[in-house]
């Protein structure tokens, strides 16, 4: 039977687990809003968080043990509950103290900033789990490390689910943290009823912690008003943070800190619409994938029958219409769906498809610039229809990375269309169709009696024959095409990003590699198994989410469900592992083999396209990978003897492995080698794990 203290500690661990996951997810969102949101940065932030957690766990080895364990655990829990909102406030506050307001800062500053600002909380959260175990064991020496792992996972799964399916819909970050940490504070107070600490100090800790959370709620909105313009709207959606600022009649919509739509921006609207639409005789049905402010009026000049506007985030289109960034025009229908999934399933075809997506710097957006998507877009067009899209432009010189990006896109899209024109406007526009394209846009507009403000006056001077020729001549026919499974564009986007800041990731990867080598030198073989499992779990989660998006589109709830399933499988896995631990080495090998089979299945899906597979199968794969990963923890811990130092090191190996899995799969394997090789890389890692286990137990 559980002792009252055991129950109380479990409550604290679960509450802290919930809070830590919610804090982690909001911290990541905060960083993505304040810095770039490319895949490299996302991986970097997750890497920092997990690595620091792993280091924090390792630091617990130095914990001397104490008769006041519950006191210490309670106080640290209060500190964690208070640190959680303070961390978010600090991250917002320091951003403009250390960096020029309004600027992006590049890789290393982002790395240092994310590392140091998240380190107090992440180190402490890593430290507190083994501490909870030590405190339990101080009272009950037979207490199992696996039980603590399971209890912690219950908290993590709950936190993930609460965030994905509740908080993200109804609460802002600091309010969500307030409610989450309230539970932590209550749980800690209940636990400390039996502690030796003075009641006064408990009250002080609890009150200060609560005050920090209250402060968070109070400064939440002011902390977003850091710059120019009046903050007129703030909203957190499941896709990110939306802020609308107004200044001297100008309205700008910011999505995750980036100005994505501004009033009075006729130039972009005209370029996005007319270069494509003036090519068609009579655009009856027009599909718009993501918008540019002011573009509906421009499309309306052609008098189309219907305009289908696809916007993934309903909140974005609501704000666009509310703040007059877009105008309701006859025939307009707004569709809130993943555009790729829509086009794949739509019966309707179009005379024109105009895509205005941002640069393909995440896997999610890259899906719209691939060979496979261009085929889908082509299928969605009627004969004589036109498809247009754009990427960042250049003014007077085409940089090398941009040249390769344009080349890759040209080589990719030309597999599907007979005629492609590239127009070097504010952005580089690709106009694609099977009929010839007339690049004399002003003449076409004049013949149709369509008036424009920008194109009529500036096109001839800005997009000259020479400039169009320069762009066409710059195309490198040998540049690889961009595909779903080999996202070459991602590599180029990363290269350009590093070029822009005149840095290279070499130092980062050299240091990470050195850390890895030193770490491998010190860990045991069982820890290596857990390290590889952590990496495989994280890597396969990224792979499964990416493949799911390719096949079924980005559907928030479903992607959130995959993330939850990946966490949820750890629990039954750990239960099962607890029962099977007597068969130790064989279980580890069998689990590794099973993981390899599942990864091989992922490779198979990638190779054959995977369109016939039901969604459920991906949840099943995610669950199975998670169960197998969870299963290995108790077995490895058992093999290591299960004492406190062993528990610390096994907890840590899992986290450090996950950190490396995130960064290697996201920023190296997928962009540079493609999805298939990323999966094969994980298979190789697991094979190495089997060899290690076999060599140690033969």
């Amino acid at each position, binding site marked *: 039977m559980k002792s009252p203290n055991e129950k109380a500690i479990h409550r604290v661990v679960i509450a802290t687990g919930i809070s830590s996951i919610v804090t982690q997810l909001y911290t990541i969102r905060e960083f993505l809003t304040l810095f770039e949101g490319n895949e490299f940065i996302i991986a970097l932030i997750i890497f920092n968080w997990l690595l620091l957690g792993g280091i924090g766990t390792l630091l617990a080895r130095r914990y001397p043990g104490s008769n006041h364990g519950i006191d210490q655990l309670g106080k640290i829990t209060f500190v964690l509950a208070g640190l959680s909102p303070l961390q978010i406030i600090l991250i917002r506050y320091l951003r403009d103290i250390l960096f020029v307001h309004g600027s992006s800062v590049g890789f290393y500053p982002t790395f240092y900033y994310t590392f140091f600002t998240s380190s107090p909380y992440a180190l402490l959260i890593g430290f507190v789990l083994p501490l909870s175990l030590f405190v339990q064991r101080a009272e009950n020496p037979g207490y199992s490390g696996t039980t603590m792992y399971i209890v912690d996972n219950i908290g993590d799964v709950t936190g993930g689910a609460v965030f994905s399916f509740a908080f993200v819909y109804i609460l802002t970050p600091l309010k969500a943290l307030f409610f989450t940490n309230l539970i932590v504070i209550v749980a800690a107070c209940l636990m400390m009823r039996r502690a030796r600490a003075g009641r006064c100090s*408990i*009250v002080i800790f609890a009150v200060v912690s609560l005050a920090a959370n209250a402060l968070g709620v109070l400064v939440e909105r002011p902390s977003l008003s850091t710059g120019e313009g009046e903050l007129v709207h703030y909203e957190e959606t499941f896709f990110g943070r939306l802020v609308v600022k107004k200044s001297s009649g100008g309205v700008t919509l910011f999505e995750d800190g980036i100005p994505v739509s501004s009033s009075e921006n006729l130039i972009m609207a005209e370029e996005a619409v007319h270069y494509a639409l003036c090519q068609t005789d009579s655009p009856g049905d027009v599909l718009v994938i993501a918008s540019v402010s002011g573009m509906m009026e421009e499309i309306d000049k052609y008098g189309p029958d219907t305009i289908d506007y696809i916007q993934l985030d309903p909140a974005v289109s609501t704000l666009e219409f509310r703040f007059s960034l877009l105008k309701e025009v006859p025939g307009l229908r707004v569709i809130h769906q993943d555009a790729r999934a829509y086009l794949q399933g739509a019966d309707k075809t179009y005379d024109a498809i105009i895509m205005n997506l941002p640069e393909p710097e995440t896997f999610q957006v890259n899906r719209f610039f691939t060979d496979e998507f261009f085929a889908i877009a082509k299928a969605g067009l009627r004969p004589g229809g036109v498809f247009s899209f754009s990427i960042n432009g250049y003014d007077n010189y085409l940089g090398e990375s941009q040249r390769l990006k344009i080349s890759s896109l040209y080589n990719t899209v030309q597999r599907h269309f007979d005629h492609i024109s590239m127009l070097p406007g504010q952005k580089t526009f690709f106009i694609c169709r099977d009929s010839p394209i007339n690049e004399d846009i002003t003449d076409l507009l004049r013949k149709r009696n369509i008036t424009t403000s920008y194109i009529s006056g*500036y096109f001839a001077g800005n997009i000259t024959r020479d400039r169009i020729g320069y762009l066409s001549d710059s195309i490198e026919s040998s540049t690889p095409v961009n595909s779903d499974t080999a996202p070459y564009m991602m590599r180029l986007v990363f290269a350009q990003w590093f070029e822009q*800041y005149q840095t290279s990731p070499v130092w980062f990867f050299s240091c990470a590699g050195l850390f890895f080598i030193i770490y491998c030198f010190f860990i045991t073989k069982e820890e290596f198994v857990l390290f590889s499992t952590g990496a495989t779990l994280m890597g396969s989660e990224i792979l499964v989410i990416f493949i799911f998006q390719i096949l079924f589109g980005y559907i928030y709830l479903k992607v959130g469900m995959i993330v939850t399933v990946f966490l949820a499988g750890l629990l039954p896995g750990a239960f099962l592992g607890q029962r099977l631990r007597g068969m130790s080495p064989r279980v580890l090998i069998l689990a590794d083999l099973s993981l390899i089979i599942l990864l091989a299945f992922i490779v198979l899906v990638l190779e054959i396209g995977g369109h016939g597979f039901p969604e459920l199968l991906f949840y099943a794969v995610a669950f199975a990978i998670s169960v197998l990963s969870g299963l290995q923890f108790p077995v490895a811990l058992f093999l290591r003897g299960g004492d406190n130092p062993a528990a610390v090191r096994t907890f840590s190996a899992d986290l450090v492995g996950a950190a490396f899995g995130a960064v290697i799969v996201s920023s190296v394997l997928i962009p540079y080698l493609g999805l298939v090789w990323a999966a094969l890389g994980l298979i190789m890692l697991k094979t190495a794990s089997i060899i290690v286990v076999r060599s140690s137990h033969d």
Partner: protein
Amino acid sequence: MIKISRRQFLITGAGTLLGPGLLDMLCPFTPALAQKAPKDIRGRIFTSAAPEELWKWSHEGFLYEKLERDRVVCGICPNSCMLSPGDRSICRSKVNIDGKLYSLTYGNPCSVNVDPIEKKPLFHFLPKTTAFSIAAAGCNFRCLNCQNWEISQVRPQDVRTSELFPPDVVRAAKSSGSASIAYTYSEPIAFFEYMIDTARLARQQGINNLWISNGYINTKPLLELSGVLDAANVNLKAFSDGIYRKLNGGRLEPVLNTFRTMHEAGLHFEITNLVVPGYTDDQEMAEKMCSWIVENLGPDHPLHFLRFFPRYKLDRLPPTPVETLVKFRQIAMKAGIRYVYVGNVPNNEGNNTYCHNCSKLLVERRGYHIPVLNIEDGRCRFCNTKIPGRWA
């Protein structure tokens, strides 16, 4: 029930009540935050970064001082880069090889275009003509919003170039039918030697020379250059030394000195000012800037307020509201500047030229098209007032 002493109660209570309030007061989430952060982003010399050998497009520096131990000091711009052998200048285009200063951008432009002169922008100089525009790699600034960073923030060997030595440039300009050659895009001060030699040759051949620059140049080379220039557009990025240092990596005073020098030399020049939200959109700053222009340069040099769009590293700010630009135009005209324009805003009244005397429309601009031009022999067709600039 938990019992605590009165002292403990007071401490806890005060902490609870005052904590958030105090922190809130201390919490500096205010627009003034933009005034904090790094104070200076000025560039640094690149030590041991010169190529081992000179290449075809190397040319000894126009103006530099030799020091002991083979060190040299470049005299072109106020950065005054002191380079030891093997070092590279802040602008990346000058190196010290064996105690001599060399420019690496002589005859190898990376960007060559024929542009309408209105694009520079130069609104009071030969309207409706084109400018043969060239740029070589390098810049002595580090502007966070640079729209040409791919050529301004790189070394000459990092870009694809064409070979066009000064006589070739003049020939190409002539055959393109351009009335002028514009030294532009990146920063022509970084390819000063190439620019001045080309400009001398162009002048001999009757082609005008246009200097589109940040104006961060020393007086001596500027005077030399002014002798062969016909017009210039110099960017007054902010009327604040702090903002110059923070957003551009330069200083204000040398730029102001450039304006004074050009004015005294009688050169036609126009001024551009990019209105960056949160930085240079301060009305008081605009008023001070306009007063300075009137007092020091007179009312006749056209001033262009340009709309900012997020670019390069400064990509998290909104575009400038058009209303702000219109307001700034009014401020400048009220201060006494006669010709004030609004740029990067199509079809705005501020694109046109109105006579400062009779207020009639002199030049209507629709982009680069000029459907109405009411200036004859440099004078207003309606009231015969002389309009500053060169019109034919």
